[in-house]
């Protein structure tokens, strides 16, 4: 998956990746600046925790830069980075699900209905990591089936069935939570 960026920006990114391989700090900074918002946003929506999302984004950058020498295609950097981030989020979700889910009421929310957010967070926490990730990537991040499949490294058919199951389960949970 590549970000929807122009040809010029893509060429620039290839240059930055090439410079990163030889340890250019400015290029590192440029790559981080370009991708950080999207990465943090996705992690925030998956984990529902801004601080944790920032940690995950940092971890994803570190992992991607550490392995940048092994990257065969410079154009694939953004997708590679995004995949790492989603996988890290899924790992954390799996760990979290085993623990007691608590909503952090002290966490600030900007705009939107707070009650709705609380309900949504509780419902999402009851879904398995795979279903939750698929649902969030599709509904919140507005990724296409192909993009979700690439990020999660599963076939498109699996994405389709997971999404269908996730929507159904989410609907049932929603009915239980708010009543018909």
């Amino acid at each position, binding site marked *: 998956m590549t970000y929807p960026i122009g040809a010029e920006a893509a060429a620039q990114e290839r240059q930055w990746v090439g410079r990163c391989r030889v340890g250019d700090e400015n290029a590192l900074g440029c790559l981080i600046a370009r991708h950080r918002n999207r990465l943090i946003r996705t992690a*925030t929506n998956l984990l529902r925790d801004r601080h944790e999302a920032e940690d995950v984004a*940092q971890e994803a950058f570190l992992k991607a830069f550490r392995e940048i020498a092994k990257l065969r295609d410079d154009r694939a950097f953004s997708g590679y980075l995004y995949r790492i981030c989603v996988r890290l989020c899924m790992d954390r979700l799996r760990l979290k699900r085993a623990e007691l889910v608590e909503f952090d009421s002290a966490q600030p929310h900007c705009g*939107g209905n707070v009650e709705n957010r609380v309900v949504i967070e509780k419902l*999402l926490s009851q879904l398995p990591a795979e279903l939750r990730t698929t649902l969030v990537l599709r509904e*919140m991040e507005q990724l296409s089936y192909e993009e979700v499949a690439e990020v999660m490294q599963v076939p498109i058919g699996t994405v389709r069935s997971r999404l*269908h199951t996730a*929507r159904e389960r989410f609907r049932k949970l*929603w009915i239980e939570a708010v009543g018909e």
Partner: protein
Amino acid sequence: MNYRLFGCKKFIRLSSEQADRTLTEREDRFLSRHREVCVDCRKAEVTTSCALNMLRMATLEPEEAPMFEDRVIRKLKVQQVRESLNYWSPALVGAGIACGVIFVTLHLASVPIQTKRAILHAGQAKREAPSRIEPKLEIDRVPVLR
């Protein structure tokens, strides 16, 4: 009476896929026909749509992360140093041990002979230490019986 019609599963699947792709005319016709006759599916469709709308509305926007780039670059440097230390640490430990052995060997080789003698004397002195005094039997004091 509340009953399930044939094709409810198909309706739910198509209703879910409707959001992701353009349905064929046939599929569309099926959906509208089924919607008219099946109350449960109609309700389910409305609930799904409402729940998903709420989900979309609950999207969180990230906050401004100050100095994010600097923090990542700093961590990357620390990580690189740590990795290189981990890589070289067995060699460093080996070199340290070798240095220690060489130092001790050189030190022992340069110890003067007098010191060795002193050590010998000390050993001897220890051996020459007065032994335990054996109790003397005072035979003379034993009275002789005549």
